[in-house]
């Protein structure tokens, strides 16, 4: 429960979501990630650290460089976590729409 909340908060931040989106395309070095943002390198570094701690990103050493990869397994877990809540509302609203389409005012 505790871990899941941390992950949830990690992905709620717009910058961190942007980082995930970038890294999802291909593995990147911290420097390459930071170049994509106006924020300071330290700020981006902190975001990367949070994402890594939550196991959303994984580090891999390639030669002298560290590359960040997306942890697909963890990402799926996170998507699954908010999805039932969204799906519940979507189903209810579908039902509302269906009921109201059949509705004939008798006034």
């Amino acid at each position, binding site marked *: *429960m505790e871990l*899941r*909340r941390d992950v*949830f*908060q990690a992905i*709620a*931040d717009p910058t961190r979501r942007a980082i995930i989106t970038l890294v999802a395309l291909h593995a990147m070095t911290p420097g390459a990630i930071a170049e994509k943002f106006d924020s300071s390198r330290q700020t981006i570094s902190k975001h990367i650290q949070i994402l890594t701690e939550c196991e959303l990103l994984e580090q891999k050493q390639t030669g002298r460089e560290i590359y960040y990869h997306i942890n697909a397994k963890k990402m799926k877990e996170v998507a699954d*976590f*908010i999805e*039932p*809540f*969204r*799906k*519940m*509302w*979507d*189903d*209810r*609203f*579908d*039902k*509302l*729409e*269906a*009921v*109201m*389409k059949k*509705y004939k005012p008798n006034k």
Partner: protein
Amino acid sequence: MERKTKIIAEDGKQEIIITREFDLPVDLLFKAYEEPELVEQWMGTKVLKLENKQHGGWQFETSDAQGKVVFRANGVIHEFVPGQKFTRTFQMENTPFDAQLEFFRFEAVTDNTSKLTMHIVYKTVALRDQMVQMGFGPGINMAHNRLQHAAEKLK
């Protein structure tokens, strides 16, 4: 499949914003929340009380196929502007969960389409996260009950 319903749950905030566009004129969308018999149809719950006015009260109840009450929620209507918006509190009875404040806004997108925005404020960030994690709201029990009911009919 297109994701019609959107959920916004920002970092460290004790609120959730749920939006959905409907293929319905705004008046019909509002009516679905206003008329008890319509609420009963789409929410799959029994409406014990629904006083659509300032300081009015509401209470919904769901029973299982054996008639046992499995869920009951109630609250107070704080503001009610027909066709546009209402504000209410929501609390599940016999649960440890604190009341939440809900703002409903109804807008016309075109003559035949509309948008609903539900803004829910919880007592704490932890409570909000817990509600989301459990996929909660009255929906789970109600959806489950409806399934069960449909299954009973098939027997």
